[in-house]
């Protein structure tokens, strides 16, 4: 009885914040299906991360060779490996030593030709890192975008779950999706001035022979640039990006490079005065200005006819880092806030009317025993809500259905007990013995029945996703709560009123028979 009163108190106290939706205290938050919002499952194309890793290794080899004045030839990327040949045999040990410093490489040699690949472990590590980094990047972007409580969590090997409760309109939703999907891969690339005039007649394969690629202009895809495949710098060296406006009041993005980026940038511009530098964002050339002099200080700008909003999003994306690989949408569920409100209302009506019917039924059928059962039921509801609030659980539509069903199970426990007591009274047992015996006999059945259901709920939780998990959680909490309230709670209440029942001896009034 004391346990029961304590648990009732616990239930009431901890469910208050949830009922009143107060700001303080732990409360149940509503699921996206009830409050509206966007749920997405994204898949990271991890193979792309491996490709870009290969690309960056090629860049390192290039700079190493230039720094050390080692002559190499035919540096290019073939599938998932980098190939090149060293012109002077004596330089090979130097190259070997350099390659040894990069971890996770397989180097194979054929005379002067070298082939560099990633080891299998390194491929796995790169993929894993790509997903972790994508989670981090997406979280940063959403935080800066100013949405309320975004959730970004990794799921499994390659997937990411994104939940945005703050989304209210389809336009908001689209903006958020665009922001997340922007690779924001900034590359500074050298224009191949020797062959620039052949760009319109050249095929991709031909360009590849010279270690070049053909890129389109961001505003006019008809305009094409022939640039060196291996970039000079990429976005990982950007430490800041801000929106600014040029003389004609066009939005531009100013970016700042870190120290190693600044050094490379300075050296490159110093050596290549008079040539063009292509500023490439996500595979499209935004501008390709002539290099007039050595640019120190490590800052640059991207212009290219942005609207202010676009420029803002690009700046956010650059600041929060590039996505190491592009992401694809695997699953999306978006619920408008009005639908959520309708669902809450409909299920509330169902819930309350369901309870009322059950309450009335119990009292009509069992009289005072029914009243006792109803007190236990109400306590049960409070406990479910309180426990869910303590765990910070979210209430979803299936979760609400779960509560309704648990109430059914809780009623069942009470019915089993009451029926047993009635049986004993009919067998002319004394009332205290009828109650004690009833509980003892009912106990075994209730335990067996509830434990099996609990086992099923646990399996549901383990193998379910999203909504099913919520359903399993409410059922599990409900079953435990109902065992507590039905077995301990009502038993205590009977003990408390036992003397009255004994004085009264009116079993019709107390047990309905």
């Amino acid at each position: 009885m004391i346990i029961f009163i304590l648990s009732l108190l616990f239930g009431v106290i901890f469910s208050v914040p949830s009922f009143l939706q107060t700001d303080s205290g732990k409360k149940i938050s509503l699921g996206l299906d009830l409050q509206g919002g966007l749920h997405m499952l994204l898949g990271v194309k991890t193979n792309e991360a491996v490709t870009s890793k290969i690309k960056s290794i090629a860049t390192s080899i290039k700079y190493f060779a230039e720094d050390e004045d080692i002559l190499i030839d035919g540096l290019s990327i073939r599938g998932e490996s980098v190939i090149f040949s060293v012109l002077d045999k004596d330089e090979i040990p130097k190259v070997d030593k350099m390659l040894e410093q990069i971890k996770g490489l397989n180097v194979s040699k054929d005379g002067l030709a070298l082939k560099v690949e990633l080891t299998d472990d390194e491929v796995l590590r790169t993929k894993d890192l790509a997903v972790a980094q994508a989670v981090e990047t997406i979280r940063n972007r959403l935080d800066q975008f100013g949405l309320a409580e975004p959730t970004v969590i990794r799921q499994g090997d390659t997937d990411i779950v994104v939940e945005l409760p703050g989304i209210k309109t389809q336009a908001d939703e689209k903006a958020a999706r665009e922001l997340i999907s922007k690779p924001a891969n900034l590359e500074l690339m050298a224009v191949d001035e020797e062959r620039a005039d052949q760009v319109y007649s050249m095929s991709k394969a031909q360009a590849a022979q010279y270690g070049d690629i053909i890129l389109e202009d961001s505003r006019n895809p008809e305009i094409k640039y022939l640039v060196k495949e291996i970039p000079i710098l990429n976005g990982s060296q950007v430490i800041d990006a801000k929106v600014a406006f040029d003389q004609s009041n066009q939005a531009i993005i100013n970016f700042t490079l870190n120290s190693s980026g600044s050094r490379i940038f300075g050296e490159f511009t110093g050596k290549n005065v008079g040539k063009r530098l292509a500023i490439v964002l996500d595979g499209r050339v935004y501008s390709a200005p002539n290099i007039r002099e050595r640019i120190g200080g490590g800052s640059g700008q991207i212009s290219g006819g942005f609207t202010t909003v676009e420029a803002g999003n690009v700046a956010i994306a650059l600041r929060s880092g590039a996505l190491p690989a592009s992401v694809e949408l695997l699953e999306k569920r978006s619920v408008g806030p009005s639908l959520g409100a309708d669902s809450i209302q409909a299920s509330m009506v169902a819930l309350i009317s369901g309870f009322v019917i059950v309450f009335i039924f119990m009292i009509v059928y069992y009289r005072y025993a029914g009243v006792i059962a109803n007190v236990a039921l109400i306590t049960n509801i409070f406990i479910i809500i309180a426990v869910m609030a303590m765990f910070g659980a979210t209430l979803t539509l299936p979760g609400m259905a779960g509560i309704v069903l648990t109430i059914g199970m809780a009623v069942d426990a009470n019915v089993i007990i009451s029926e047993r007591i009635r049986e004993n009274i009919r067998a002319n047992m004394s009332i205290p013995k009828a109650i004690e015996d009833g509980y003892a006999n009912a106990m075994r059945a209730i335990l067996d029945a509830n434990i099996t259901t609990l086992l099923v709920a646990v399996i549901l939780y383990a193998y379910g996703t999203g909504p099913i998990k919520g359903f399993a959680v409410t059922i599990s909490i409900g079953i435990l709560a109902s065992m507590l309230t039905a077995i301990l709670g009502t038993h205590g209440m009977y003990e408390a009123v036992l003397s009255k029942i004994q004085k009264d001896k009116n079993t019709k009034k107390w047990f309905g028979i």
Partner: protein
Amino acid sequence: MEIFSNNKTYDFMGKRIPFLGLSAILFIASIILLTTKGLNFGIDFAGGTIVQVKYEQKAPIDKIREVLANTEYKGSTITEFGSPEEVVIRVTGSSSALANDIGDEMHKLLDSTGNFNVRRVDMVGPKVGGELREKGLMALGLSLIVILVYVSFRFEWRFAIASILALAHDITIALGAISLFNVEVNLDILAAILTILGYSLNDTIIVFDRVREGIQTSKESILSKITNESVSRTLSRTTLTSLTTFFVVATLFAFGGEIIHGFAFTLLVGIVVGTYSSIFVAASFLVQLKFNIENFRAKEAEKVKKQKEKDKLRAMYEQGTV
């Protein structure tokens, strides 16, 4: 108030053959339905996109069809959803592009059909659909195994087999009804099926508990008599619980809104079938499996004896006489 007289014992087991026959017919009919008509898998399992649109006035379904007929979405189905203002457009494909998806496209296409509000866009890619299906079957299979083990442990293997047979009976018939009424099968239906499993098991175990008790306490040694007695004693509990649950689910069905309709429907069918099976079918299987009372009693007696010996030993040990 009482529904069933508590002193009367009904002869369920004597009439078990006709009831088992009825069950067999329903079971076979369901299997035929499931193999010929099959289940109407929704996007959770089949993949695809649904767009729920609410218009300010009555939804112009014909116009929507016309607009979509000239696009790549011409194969989509358009159905009223809950009220005449609201429609659901089901598209078989899904788009994996994050920045511009089917929801955005729909919004543009439908622009000319009137003032509306896109209330829900759900898209499930083919990979996820396959995974969800796999996990669902896994959950169902594992649940059955766990039940088998637990009931064998608490009762006896024939009880476990009988309860699993009764469960298979309930689930198959519920699935048959889902197929018959063309209910869209999504994750929530899977949850409903698993709930039915729990409920029906609950009912069956309460009856079996009585049978177990009867075997242990009564002097009767004919199983069908004990079973009749047990089913009759639990009859009012079974019907009462089922009735109250039925009420609650019926209100969900009536007022819970369109989204919860399929879920509530499946549960309604499940509760009716589950109640029927725990009264008429589960115990019949037990009798049909020729459960041997004498053996069971002997084993139970053995257990009790061992327990007593243990207690005795312990008592002696504690008193220090060993």
